[in-house]
C-alpha cells in the first residue's frame, strides 16, 4: 500500500520511458553471486527451461547451477515467483588430451533443456569437446524398515531376525540429485560452440568451428556428420561456423551462421551431408562503412529462431538483425546495439574486445529482442514500436523492487547528468549471456559472476 502512490508517481515519470516499452522492469529480486570472484565463477551460459520454472546457469569452472521459481503463495505475495537455488552439480571436469598435449577447458559453453516428459528434468550441457545429458530428479521419500539392515545402515545379524516386514516409504527432506545419463564424446576435433535440441525430441545437434554432428539421445558412440566445411586443403580455410540451431517446429530444418556474416538454412531431407544450403542469407556490404575491421565485426556471434519459426535473429559485433526466412538478400530489421563503438574499433581490437561473442534472445511473443553490451548494459528493442532502451545490471542502482532506470551513452561533447560518456565505459564488464522467460516478462542477465533476475512490474 505504501508503494502505490510511489508507483503512481513512478509510473507517471516512467511513462515517458514506458513509451519505449509497455512494461517496466524492476531490478533484481534476487542477485545471486559468489562472495569471492574467481575466474571459475564467471557465468558462461544462461537458459530457461520450456516452462520457465527452472533457470540453469553454467560457469567457467564446469558447474551447473539450477534455480527454481517459487510457487506463488498467498501468505507471501511479495515473494511472487522468486528464483532460488534448486540444484548445483559439477558437470564437466578439466581434461587432458594426451594425443595433442592439450588441456580441455571445463567451461560450460551451452546448456539446453529438453522438454519435460516425466517427473524428472533433463538438460544437455557441453564444454569444448563433450556433451552430457543430465537428469535432475527429486527425492522426497525414502524407504524405511529394511530387514537386513537397521536404520543406521548397519547390517543386522541374520540369526536375530525373527519376523519379516515390508519397507515403507516415508517422507524426507527434499533432495535434488543430478545424474549424468549420457556422455557424447570424441566427435569433435574443434571447439563446440552450439548445441540444439530438435523438435522431435529424439535428436540434437552439436556444432564446432568446422563441423556439425547429429546425435540420437540414446546412442552415444555414434553421431552423423551433417555439415562439414573443412576444406580439403586447409590453406583455403577462410570461414568457420559460429552458431547453429534447429527450427522450432520443422525437425528437418536448421540454420548455421558463419564468421563471414552469413547464415545458411539447411534441409536434412535433401541429402545426408548438408553441405549445400537450401537458403543463404547475406546482406550486401555497405561500402560507406567499410573499414579495416569490417570482416571481423561482421562475424555472427549468435543465431536464434523466433518462437514462431518465421524469423531468425543474428548478432554481430555492433548490430542485431532480424531476417525473414523468405527473404535471403537482406535482413528485415537492423538494430544498432552500440554504434558509438564504431570509432573505437582499433582500441577494441587491441584489447581483444572486438572478438567478444554476444548472445541475443527473443521474448515469448517475439515482439521484443534483447542483447548485451559493455559496462553491464543490456539493450532491448521493441520490434513493433521501434523503441529501444538501455538498462544496467548493477548492484549500486538497484534497491529491491525499485524500477530500473534507463541509461544513456553520450557520444558527443555535452554530457547530461545521467549520461555516461563512451570513454568511461568499462569494457571488462560485458553482458554476453541473457535469457528471457518463455511466456512471462522475466529476464536473466549474467554479468561476469553475478546473475541478475528482473521481473516485470506490471501486474
Amino acid at each position, binding site marked *: 500500500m505504501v508503494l502505490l502512490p510511489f508507483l503512481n508517481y513512478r509510473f507517471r515519470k516512467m511513462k515517458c520511458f514506458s513509451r519505449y516499452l509497455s512494461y517496466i522492469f524492476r531490478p533484481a529480486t534476487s542477485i545471486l553471486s559468489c562472495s569471492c570472484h574467481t575466474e571459475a565463477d564467471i557465468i558462461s551460459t544462461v537458459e530457461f527451461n520450456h516452462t520457465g520454472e527452472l533457470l540453469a546457469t553454467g560457469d567457467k569452472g564446469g558447474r551447473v547451477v539450477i534455480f527454481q521459481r517459487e510457487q506463488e503463495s498467498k501468505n507471501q505475495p511479495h515473494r511472487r515467483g522468486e528464483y532460488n537455488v534448486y540444484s548445483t552439480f559439477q558437470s564437466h571436469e578439466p581434461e587432458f588430451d594426451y594425443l595433442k598435449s*592439450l588441456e580441455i577447458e571445463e567451461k560450460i559453453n551451452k546448456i539446453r533443456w529438453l522438454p519435460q516428459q516425466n517427473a524428472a528434468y533433463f538438460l544437455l550441457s557441453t564444454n569444448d569437446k563433450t556433451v552430457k545429458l543430465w537428469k535432475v530428479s527429486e527425492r522426497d521419500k525414502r524407504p524405511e524398515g529394511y530387514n537386513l539392515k537397521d536404520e543406521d545402515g548397519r547390517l543386522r545379524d541374520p540369526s536375530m531376525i525373527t519376523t519379516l516386514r515390508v519397507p515403507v516409504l516415508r517422507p524426507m527432506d527434499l533432495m535434488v540429485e543430478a545424474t549424468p545419463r549420457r556422455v557424447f564424446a570424441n566427435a569433435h576435433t*574443434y*571447439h563446440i560452440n552450439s548445441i540444439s535440441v530438435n523438435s522431435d525430441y529424439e535428436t540434437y545437434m552439436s556444432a564446432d568451428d568446422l563441423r556439425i554432428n547429429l546425435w540420437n539421445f540414446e546412442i552415444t558412440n555414434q553421431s552423423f556428420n551433417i555439415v562439414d566445411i573443412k576444406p580439403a586443403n*586447409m590453406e583455403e580455410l*577462410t570461414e568457420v561456423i559460429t552458431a547453429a540451431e534447429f527450427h522450432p517446429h520443422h525437425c528437418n530444418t536448421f540454420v548455421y551462421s558463419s564468421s563471414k556474416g552469413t547464415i545458411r538454412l539447411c534441409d536434412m531431407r535433401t541429402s545426408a551431408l548438408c553441405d549445400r544450403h537450401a537458403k543463404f542469407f547475406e546482406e550486401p556490404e555497405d561500402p560507406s562503412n567499410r573499414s*579495416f575491421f569490417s*570482416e*571481423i565485426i561482421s562475424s555472427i556471434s549468435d543465431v536464434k529462431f523466433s518462437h514462431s519459426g518465421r524469423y531468425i535473429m543474428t548478432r554481430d559485433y555492433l548490430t542485431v538483425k532480424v531476417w525473414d526466412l523468405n527473404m535471403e538478400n537482406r535482413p528485415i530489421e537492423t538494430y544498432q546495439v552500440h554504434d558509438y563503438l564504431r570509432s573505437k574499433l582499433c582500441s577494441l581490437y*587491441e584489447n581483444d574486445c572486438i*572478438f567478444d561473442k554476444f548472445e541475443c534472445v527473443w521474448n515469448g511473443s517475439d515482439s521484443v529482442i534483447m542483447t548485451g553490451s559493455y559496462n553491464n548494459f543490456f539493450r532491448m528493442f521493441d520490434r513493433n514500436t521501434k523503441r529501444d532502451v538501455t538498462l544496467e545490471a548493477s548492484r549500486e542502482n538497484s534497491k529491491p523492487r525499485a524500477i530500473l532506470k534507463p541509461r544513456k551513452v553520450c557520444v558527443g561533447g555535452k554530457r547530461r547528468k545521467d549520461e555516461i560518456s563512451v570513454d568511461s565505459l568499462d569494457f571488462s564488464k560485458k553482458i554476453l549471456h541473457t535469457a528471457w522467460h518463455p511466456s512471462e516478462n522475466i529476464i536473466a542477465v549474467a554479468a561476469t559472476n553475478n546473475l541478475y533476475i528482473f521481473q516485470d512490474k506490471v501486474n
Partner: protein
Amino acid sequence: MLGRGLKRKLSDYEENMAGLSSRQLVLNMCLTKLQTYKMLVEPNLHRSVLIANTVQQESNCCDLRSAEDQIENSLLIVSDDDMSSAISSILKDLDFVEDISPPTCLGAECVFGSFEISNSTSYLKDLAIDDIFEDIDTSMYDSDFCCPPLMPPRPPPLAAEEPLKTFPSCNSSSANNIQICRTDLSELDHIMEILVGS
C-alpha cells in the same frame, strides 16, 4: 622508378603519413596477436581466420593503390613480411597454411621481384638446346658427317693416312663434348630447380 623525387604538398604528405601510421599500427597489432596465438598451446581457430582474412584483404587493397603510394608502402615491407611468416607459422600449427602471397608492388620487393628466378628456369626449359648454341659453329658435330662411333685406339697409320686419323679422334671427342654439353645443361636445369624450389 625509385628515387624519382616526387614533389608533393605537405598536407598530402601528412595525411598519407597519418593514414600510413594508423595502418602500420593496426598491422603491427595483427602481427603481435598472431605471434601471441602462436605461443598458445591451442590457437583460436576463429580469431586466426578472422585476422588472416583481414590481413589478406588489406594486402589486396594494397595492390590496388597507386604507384605513388609504393614509396610510402615500402616502410611496411618488414611488417608485411613478418606478418606473412607469422601467419604461415601459426596456421601451420593449426594444421593449415594459408597461402598469403606477398604484395607485388612494394619497394624493395619490386627490386627482388624483378630478379624472378622462376622465370629464368622456364626460360631455360622453353628453349631448345640447339638455340643456345646457334652462335657456335656446330657443323663439325652434325650427324650428316659420317663418323664411325668410338673406336678402340689403333696404332698410328702410315703418313698418307694421317689426315684421316684426326677425324675419328675428333669424332670421339666431339661425341664426348656433346655428351658433356648435354650433361651440363641438364645439371644446370636441376640446380636451377633446387634454387627456385619449384
